[in-house]
């Protein structure tokens, strides 16, 4: 960093100012802003161009130059005030005292007690999950990795809960990205349709004036997710709802259903922009249900009412359930057979496979199993991620 001061100082002639600007950029970088030497050089140019007396001019110029996303934009003012105006020092030490409230409390980035150079914004590396995947600017997947392997039953700390739900939405986003990227590569390259070209050239006396191309229309992968929301699944369903929401958000071609004693189409409710609102709507729709799980009957509703429109040729049906059916197993088997005829693949995710020495002895489960293409665990986020390569092969 001192090298940067060196370069900038000689360039501008104002070493003190250069040092302050470089220091400011360092604080921003510690807070996850994507800034480096080019920004420092431009920053100094800007500072010299605007009238220094006008604080707002400097603020706005720096904000345009140094922010790169909406989150940055929102946090910038606080950090700017803290660094240049020395605001928030008192608050800084107070926040540091209340460690239990976590880094997000109060000020951005979390603060450690003021050092000789004034308050220092602590680097968030490894502390905040956003560092991984979300903006991709920094590495350090440590805590995310371990969370991904935690059985979702054991997540009960509210902060951890928030992280897991966050991670599950992001996982869905990443799956979408990978799956469609494959499609894009296949789409590349256009082939000439020689027959057409020759036919077209007849009216131009044999000169191929009009070229014709063959295009392969890739059929997008469609996902239909059917989620069991019964009591025995309640430990898991919150996470799956989040995950499904992520899937719907990122796959253009996806439908979601929830069942308990009857089947409900929830795509519209889940497409709600605001997560909390979506979950609220979900809860409203699901309320007033009585006990028992009728998998067979719910699947029958799906087969009769929705299958024709929801299932196309390249569709994977994902059923998330523990397989405890209060209805007759023959019914379930019959409906599964019918579903199998339509869908390209049926994936059954059972959170209980992840438990030690689980056998699919539930009557419903063993009745459905012959029609399932992939029977996989879904007790943690890693197992959900493991689905992706399988779906990509469809």
């Amino acid at each position, binding site marked *: 960093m001192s090298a940067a001061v060196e370069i900038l100082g000689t360039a501008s002639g104002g070493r003190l100012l250069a040092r302050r600007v470089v220091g400011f950029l360092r604080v921003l970088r510690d807070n996850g802003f*994507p*800034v*480096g030497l*080019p*920004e420092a050089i*431009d920053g100094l*140019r*800007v500072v010299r*161009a605007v009238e220094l007396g006008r604080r*707002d*001019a400097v603020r*706005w*110029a720096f*904000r*345009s*130059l140094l*922010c*790169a*996303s*909406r989150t*940055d*934009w929102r946090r910038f003012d606080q950090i700017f005030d803290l660094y240049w105006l020395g605001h928030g020092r008192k608050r800084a030490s107070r926040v540091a005292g209340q460690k239990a409230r976590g880094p997000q409390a109060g000020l951005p980035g979390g603060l450690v007690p003021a050092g000789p150079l004034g308050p220092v914004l602590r680097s968030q590396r490894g502390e905040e999950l956003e560092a991984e995947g979300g*903006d*991709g*600017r920094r590495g350090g997947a440590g805590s995310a990795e371990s969370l991904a392997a935690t059985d979702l039953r054991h997540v009960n700390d509210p902060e951890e809960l928030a992280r897991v739900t966050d991670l599950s939405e992001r996982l869905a986003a990443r799956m979408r990205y990978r799956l469609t*990227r494959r499609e*894009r590569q296949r*789409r590349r390259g256009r082939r000439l349709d020689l027959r057409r070209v020759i036919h077209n050239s007849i009216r131009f006396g044999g*000169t*191929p*004036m*009009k*070229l014709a191309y063959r295009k392969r229309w890739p059929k997008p992968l469609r996902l239909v997710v059917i989620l069991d929301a019964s009591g025995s699944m309640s430990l898991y369903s919150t996470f799956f709802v989040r995950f499904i929401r992520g899937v719907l958000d990122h796959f253009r071609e996806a439908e979601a259903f929830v069942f308990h004693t009857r089947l409900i189409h929830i795509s519209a409710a889940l497409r709600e*922009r605001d997560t909390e*609102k979506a979950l609220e709507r979900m809860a409203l729709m699901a309320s007033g249900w009585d006990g028992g799980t009728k998998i067979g009957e719910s699947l029958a509703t799906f087969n009769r009412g929705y299958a024709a429109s929801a299932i196309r040729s390249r569709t994977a049906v994902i059923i998330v359930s523990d397989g405890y059916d209060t209805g007759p197993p023959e019914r379930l088997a019959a409906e599964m057979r019918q579903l199998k005829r339509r869908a390209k693949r049926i994936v059954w995710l059972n959170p209980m496979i992840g438990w030690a020495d689980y056998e699919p002895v539930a009557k419903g489960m063993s009745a459905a199993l012959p029609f399932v293409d992939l029977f996989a665990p879904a007790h943690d986020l890693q197992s959900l991620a493991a689905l992706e390569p399988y779906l990509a092969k469809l």
Partner: protein
Amino acid sequence: MTLSREEVLGRLGGVGYVADPQLATAIVLMQQLGRPLLLEGEAGVGKTEVAKALAAVLAAPLIRLQCYEGLDASAAVYEWDYQRQLLAIKIWESEERSAEEKERHIFDEDFLLKRPLLKAISMAEPPVLLVDEIDRADEEFEAYLLEVLSDFQISIPELGTVTATAVPYVVLTSNGTRELSDALRRRCLYHYVDFPGEDKELRIVLARLPGIEQALAAQVVRFVQALRKEDLRKKPGVAETLDWAAALVGLGVRDLRSEPEALHESLMCLLKTQEDQAVVPLEVVERLAGRAV
């Protein structure tokens, strides 16, 4: 020629664009640093308008590149005019020229169809290049665009490299449907465009619709501001506010409370999906209108 912030503000006002000083600062920086400006914000907050106003202020031509999924180089950069090349070959068949000469002629600039990016780079005076909805283009195109924006040159294998004689003013807009790459974000100046506040929106309405009565304009703006707080799928943007205000003027409405039915029917200017229209029944319209007065 670099304009100062006050000059930019004044000129934007002169072309009917109500800007805040922050945006003016960003425009000044664009000129100083030669960096593109990335505008993010919800649909309908007036991101595209910024580029149009900028072109008017600088008296520069506006070149627009609308991005979409599958946008490729032949639509964004350049394409050879294949049919004309073929015709030229036919015409010269009888002429006595060497093959090399003919080939050189065929890959001449005459046969080059310039698409927005190449056009922006090859102009003598710097134009304003608007890359609209960059988040809808593929990652590959984004990477290519980044390369063009850092070097301001495009290489055409048959012709050589075209280097910009005048660096265009580049404005990119994004609705945030896809996360943009960090490299592109770093390359750009950033400005987040929010829905305008009541005061600013009123100034926009008055600037764009000079015929409207002040009282009605104020009511309209308060109504729309309140409507945006409702549980809507698609919040009405500034353009919708202007449409609606113009519609009300056309219908001869002078006070929002006077004709609730007509008001409710005219809401199709603001609410563009059936679900949203269902969310705002007549009673809600009356409530909002009552509060807006």
